[in-house]
């Protein structure tokens, strides 16, 4: 096959690759939104004065962060059917796994974000008569999100790349679609290169956006 690359098959396989990319994007979006929501709750738990709650949250986060993602994916794929009694399918299993896994990472970002809000703001909120919930919702979290926006997005780029690991359980994402198309057209090399190119372009553009955001927010406090 040397010097004999044939990229014309890419055009034929585009619709098929698109279905794979759609799952990749769906997985990224679900895990990002679910992960940030759950991660924020975990961060509140870690910072809460209730010791058992804080300890439980920090255990969860530390365990998730010290196991390879591939292992977590395999764990959930294996254990969920044992608990629910019926197989869940690779795609749904991936959605659950990534949300729960990414929550641990978003939690640490949100925790840093909440701690970055000045104490005066917190005290001022309480002085205005806000309850804990109101103070978090109206004063602290909006600022924490804003301060951490570039970091949250950077983590999302990492998440987007990590979705390729659903390969381990055979879910049909972009990479899997490229592999299948490569087999069907007998052009595996071109397909891997093409998939790499798509990942690169998307991640590079997103990281460019992050850089711009960082510059815009840098001195505006």
């Amino acid at each position, binding site marked *: 096959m040397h010097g004999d690359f044939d990229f014309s098959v890419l055009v034929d396989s585009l619709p098929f690759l698109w279905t794979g990319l759609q799952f990749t994007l769906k997985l990224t979006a679900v895990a990002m939104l679910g992960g940030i929501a759950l991660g924020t709750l975990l961060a509140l738990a870690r910072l809460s004065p209730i010791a058992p709650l804080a300890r439980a949250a920090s255990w969860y986060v530390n365990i998730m962060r010290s196991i*390879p993602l591939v*292992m977590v994916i395999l764990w959930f794929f*294996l254990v969920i059917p044992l608990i629910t009694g019926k197989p869940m399918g690779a795609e749904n299993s991936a959605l659950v796994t990534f949300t729960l896994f990414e929550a641990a990472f978003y939690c640490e970002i949100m925790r840093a974000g909440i701690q970055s809000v000045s104490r005066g703001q917190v005290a001022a909120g309480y002085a205005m008569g806000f309850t804990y919930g109101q103070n978090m919702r109206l004063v602290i979290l909006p600022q924490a999100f804003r301060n951490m926006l570039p970091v949250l997005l950077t983590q999302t780029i990492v998440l987007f*790349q990590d979705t*390729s*690991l659903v390969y381990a359980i055979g879910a049909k994402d972009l990479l899997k679609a490229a592999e299948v198309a490569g087999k069907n057209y007998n052009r595996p090399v071109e397909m*891997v*290169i093409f998939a*790499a190119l798509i990942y690169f372009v998307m991640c*590079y553009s997103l990281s460019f956006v992050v850089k711009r955001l960082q510059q815009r927010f840098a001195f505006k406090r």
Partner: protein
Amino acid sequence: MNYHWNWGIFLEQVKGGDETYLNWLLTGFGWTVAVSLSAWVMALALGILLGVLRTVPSRALVAAATAWVELFRNIPLLVQMFLWFFVMPELLPADWGLWVKQEMPAKEFFTATICLGLFTSSRVAEQVRAGIQALPGGQLMAGLAMGLTLPQTYRHVLLPTALRMVVPPLTSEFMNVFKNSSVAFAIGVMELTFQAKQMQEDSEQGIETFLAVTLLYFICAFSANRVMAVIERRTRIPGTAADVAAQS
């Protein structure tokens, strides 16, 4: 949930072989450690070089090093594994490609190590660059003013401080190397994740298998963390906040 527990499974023989499952897992552990450590050595050497190149007063060198970092940071590790394993032999001259595909000894191991090493080098480079840029600008000028050449200034003035400052972020990168090495299962390296999948299919004792393998990964990450903690203590810069805190 009716799961049939069998903790004795590790000492049982694998189907169609005279090894025990424990042998499989220990082999896997060995490959995981081998891939991770060799990749880490490679990543440190390349990463320090690239981190330095990103800070030198030469546009061409900075651009080249930046391109390297962006390339390896923006493609998923698994896709990079496939690129090295399936695509790279096709890009080599024909007889080299054939040798790589058919005769190269331990080709999965070397491919995975090179891939993981280059991937990690871009992340090490970012930390090293940040460390060098965090130094006061006067250090570089002072070095040059003393008559040192630029390489001498890096070697004797900038790097000794910068590298010691970035030990904490490098600790998490070192732990990441072990975690990331799990991706090597996809190209057939017989490391822990590969053995876990194989043992689960063969023994049908998934939970015991994954618990044992997860524990082995914990051991890797924990040891990496402890080794780096020792290095951090030994190389602490006298007079810094971290040093003062440790002394008191």
